[in-house]
Structures are given as structure tokens and as C-alpha cells.
């Protein structure tokens, strides 16, 4: 069967589900960040699929470029925060990071 829009949408739904499971379930803060990156990639696939099958214009690709830029900035800031958390609590387990002050 020819590859239509729904094939790409199913891939993006699968990536979104895996990313959501990682964010909800995993204990390590860096695994949560990996789940967030999976969710952002699934949104990008959605943008590009609709851009290609809806008339082949460039609007979806522009949106995907800005999503990639913002994902990079967010990953840098989030990892700086995780490093500070590790310096402070000596763990990156999201369960044990629960005190606002010592």
C-alpha cells in the first residue's frame, strides 16, 4: 500500500506514547529529559507530515526548525539545572529531590 499521511502520524503517535511513558515513569531526571526529547521529535514529525501532504508548502518546516532550536535551548538549561541538583542533593532521583531547603 502506498505510504499516506496516516503512516507518519502513527509513527509520531508511537514516539509520543513512549516519551510520555518515560516522563511519567522513570526515576532518573536525565531519563525524563530523554522522554521530553522523544515527545518533541514526535511533534516535529507531525508538523512535517502535514506540511508535505497538505500542499507541500514550507510552513510546517519553519515550525519544525523553531521546535529544534527551542529543544536545544531547553536541553541545555535543563541539564544545567540537573547538574545543580546533583551538586546539592548528591542524587538525580526525582523522588528524593523533595526538600526546598535543607
Amino acid at each position, binding site marked *: 500500500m502506498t505510504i499516506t499521511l496516516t503512516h507518519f502520524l502513527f509513527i509520531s503517535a508511537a514516539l509520543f506514547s513512549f516519551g510520555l511513558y518515560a516522563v511519567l515513569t522513570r526515576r532518573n531526571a536525565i531519563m525524563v529529559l530523554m522522554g521530553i526529547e*522523544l515527545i518533541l521529535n514526535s511533534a516535529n*514529525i507531525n508538523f512535517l507530515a502535514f506540511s508535505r*501532504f497538505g500542499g507541500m508548502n514550507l510552513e510546517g518546516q519553519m515550525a519544525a526548525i*523553531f521546535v529544534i532550536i527551542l529543544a536545544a535551548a531547553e536541553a541545555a538549561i535543563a541539564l*544545567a539545572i540537573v547538574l545543580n541538583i546533583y551538586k546539592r542533593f548528591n542524587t538525580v532521583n526525582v523522588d528524593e529531590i523533595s526538600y526546598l531547603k535543607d
Partner: protein
Amino acid sequence: MNLYEIIFYFFAAITVGSAAIVVFSRNIVYSAFALLFTFFGVAGIYVLLNADFLAITQLLVYVGGILVLLLFGVMLTTNTVSLDVKPGSLNVLPAVSVVAVIAGLLGGVYWTSDWFVSTQMGELMNQTTSKEIGNALITTHVLPFEIASVILLVAIVGAAMMARREKVN
């Protein structure tokens, strides 16, 4: 079963399979390397969607930037002294139910919707997109472009300031 379909199923299998390894693996370094293959698979899917510039950008930024950052984070925050026996994931059953509901909703909407697929293909089908993206970034999308530059500057300064080593008195 022409070449397009074979390549599509190949990259789809790489992407979804690696994403499953990322999420379900016990070892975080295995997850990081499976994330590398996921990004490669997604870049292949971008090429199949006529987004060639975006595929290369994905490889440069995600694999070359974000994944390296994640690996540095993994290396700097592993506590090898205390090897805990606690499980790697918690709240598995509520998470599985929530994710199953959301995946079912998404899949159902995608399957049963009558998507508008435009039959007229623009002239962008047979050319590379770099020139058009460059034009669009300067003419019609110049405001998000400038704001993205400011965001990147703020992110660089903020991350460098937050992650610096404290001065030892």
C-alpha cells in the same frame, strides 16, 4: 512494494524500536545510545517527507548537540558508590493505563479522520528546500528568527552561569 515503502518501513522500525529501548532499558547509557538511533531514524523520516535541510539540522543539533549534552549529564551525575536496588521505574500500572488511553485516542483519531490530502504538489517536490527556507527565514519568518536568536543567547548565558564551578575561598 517499491523502494520508498521499503525505506519507510526500515526507518520506522529503527525509530520505534530504538524508542522502545530508550524507555524500557535499565541501563541509562544503553538508553542514551538507543536515543542516538532514534534520532537517526527520525532524520531518515524527515528525508522521506521532503525535508532534507531539516534532516541534516536534526543530525547536527540533536545528535551532535543535545545527545552529547545528555551523555555528559549522565557521566557527571552517576553515583557509582551507592548501587541501589530500587527499581528504575515507579507507578508503572497507572502510567501504562494513561499512556494506553492517550495512544488509543491518538491512533483512533488518526485512523478515522478524513484527512485533507492535497493532490496538487507544489514545485517544492523536486528541489531541495534549503534555498526556500533561507528565503523564508529572512522575509516572512524574520520575527521568530530574531526571537530564536535572543532565546539562544539567553540559554547560553544562563546555562553557563548556572553550571559553573563555585569559587573556592
